[in-house]
């Protein structure tokens, strides 16, 4: 079995999505609050704290510079954590996947449903954040409305990357490694809180080549500032290709882990 063999999927995979949605809706208020509070905390800490000592970053006020980064980080965290820790619990502790594959659904469909659900969590996160940023007047409309569909694509990318780690993680504790060695560096070095042009060339090239969040930030910043980044199209293609690869890879890795 190859790591990149194309999965056979049917519409049944949405039933897995619906199962997760039903759980989510039961605890909607609990799920809603962190998505709401976190960007506010960052805005106050960085916007008013750091922002007051910085005039302009890349030609815009600091708060307008970091607003798109906060949305991008929200997208990344929502789907990545959904498809790592939450999926791991469903797979290993709750045996939810095992229960579902005893029905006509296949393991490929279960994982694909999980990935689509992870992407949906990113969309929900963005929908909750947009009004907050709109209220402070730090993102442009209507271009920022495109963030909603874009969140699904970017969310799917981080969901698929997360699912790859879930598939190879020997225990739920080892999922802390990708969190600290992958998510945290991306949080800091993807052109999020300071412009990539301030970094040494080596780090800048690394961020562009290997850190998915860099490309997500480039696209989101182009939309919230209504300002075309020269990298915009390259970033979009980068994200599409990476999403396809990790989507297929994560399904095959999970199949390898669960079907023995």
């Amino acid at each position, binding site marked *: 079995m190859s790591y990149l063999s194309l999965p056979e999927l049917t519409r049944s995979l949405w039933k897995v999505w619906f199962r997760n949605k039903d759980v989510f809706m039961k605890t909607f208020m609990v799920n809603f609050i962190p998505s709401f509070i976190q960007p506010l905390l960052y805005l106050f800490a960085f916007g008013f704290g750091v922002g007051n000592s910085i005039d302009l970053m890349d030609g815009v006020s600091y708060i307008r510079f970091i607003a798109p980064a906060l949305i991008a980080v929200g997208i990344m965290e929502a789907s990545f954590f959904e498809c790592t820790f939450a999926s791991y619990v469903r797979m290993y502790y709750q*045996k939810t996947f095992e*229960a579902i594959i005893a029905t006509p659904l296949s393991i490929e469909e279960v994982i694909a449903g999980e990935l689509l659900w992870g992407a949906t969590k990113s969309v929900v996160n963005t929908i909750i954040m947009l009004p907050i940023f709109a209220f402070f007047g730090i993102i442009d409309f209507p271009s920022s409305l495109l963030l909603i569909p874009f969140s699904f694509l970017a969310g799917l990318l981080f969901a698929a990357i997360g699912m790859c780690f879930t598939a190879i993680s020997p225990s739920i504790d080892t999922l802390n490694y990708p969190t600290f060695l992958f998510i945290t560096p991306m949080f800091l070095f993807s052109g999020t809180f300071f412009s990539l042009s301030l970094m040494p060339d080596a780090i800048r090239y690394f961020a562009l080549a290997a850190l998915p969040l860099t490309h997500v930030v480039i696209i989101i910043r182009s939309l919230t500032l209504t300002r075309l980044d020269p990298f915009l199209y390259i970033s979009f293609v980068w994200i599409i290709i990476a999403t396809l690869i990790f989507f297929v890879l994560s399904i095959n890795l999970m199949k390898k882990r669960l079907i023995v």
Partner: protein
Amino acid sequence: MIEAEALEKRYGGFIAVDKISFKVKEGEVFGFLGPNGAGKTTTMKMIQCVSPKDFGKLEVFGMDVSTDQRKIKGLLGVMPQENNLDPDFSVYQNLLIYSRYFNIPQRKAENIIEELLDFVMLNEKKDTLTTLLSGGMKRRLLLARALLNNPRLLVLDEPTVGMDPQARHLIWDKVKKLRSQGNTIVLSTHYLEEAQRLCDRLVIMDNGKILVEGKPLELIKEYIGTEIVEAENNPAALSCLEKTSSKFEVVGDTIHVYTDEPQRVMNALLKECDFGKVIVRRATLEDVFLKFTGRKMRD
């Protein structure tokens, strides 16, 4: 219903199921017995199409498990060994959400669920979260869930593991009821009393192989006899027994004498061999099981 020929499954170099052949007929209860690691669950998982076979033939409903998984799984009901109910949902929601996986329309599913909750006597608990159910209730709910799609074949993996006698008898009643309605059932169990009560036919497995196959009572009769006389093991008794033509076996500090005429044997032993304590009991499937799989501990 099920036909296996030279079916084989390996994990790396370890042979979990070693070229076994068996047939399960429509309407019967067929049991897989064996010590831990015998290959029972692996065989059941191949029947359920969740673990691919490596070699040999395995057909369920006349379809190949390697190519027709989706069709086969749609006609199967599976009660797993380990609880995998959804802890995020109530009893009722568990069944409703599971029914979606079988494409059962919601209206129809609601009717089926009402019936099934009555059948397993969980109607009063329908709004309880499954994490708050007792062990026996969880098993009953798993049985109800396995019946949602009105399966042609029911697969029960250790259906009464860890249950108290009351709950176990309830599950047995339900299995018997399902059987009387013409359902075909495949089950695996460690409990030989359970197998003897429920199974029309069974196989005893060990180390991935089928050691013996047959009907419970016929197996007992063929390999053990109807009764067993148990006596204390001492050298005098042993040498005395060797002079008679009895079929016997030494098990730790007891001697088992296999016979169809317990009264005669017991009297003879008491008179001629000067035995201290003698017990007569009916031979059970457990005696057949231990005869074939030995008394060595497994894990």
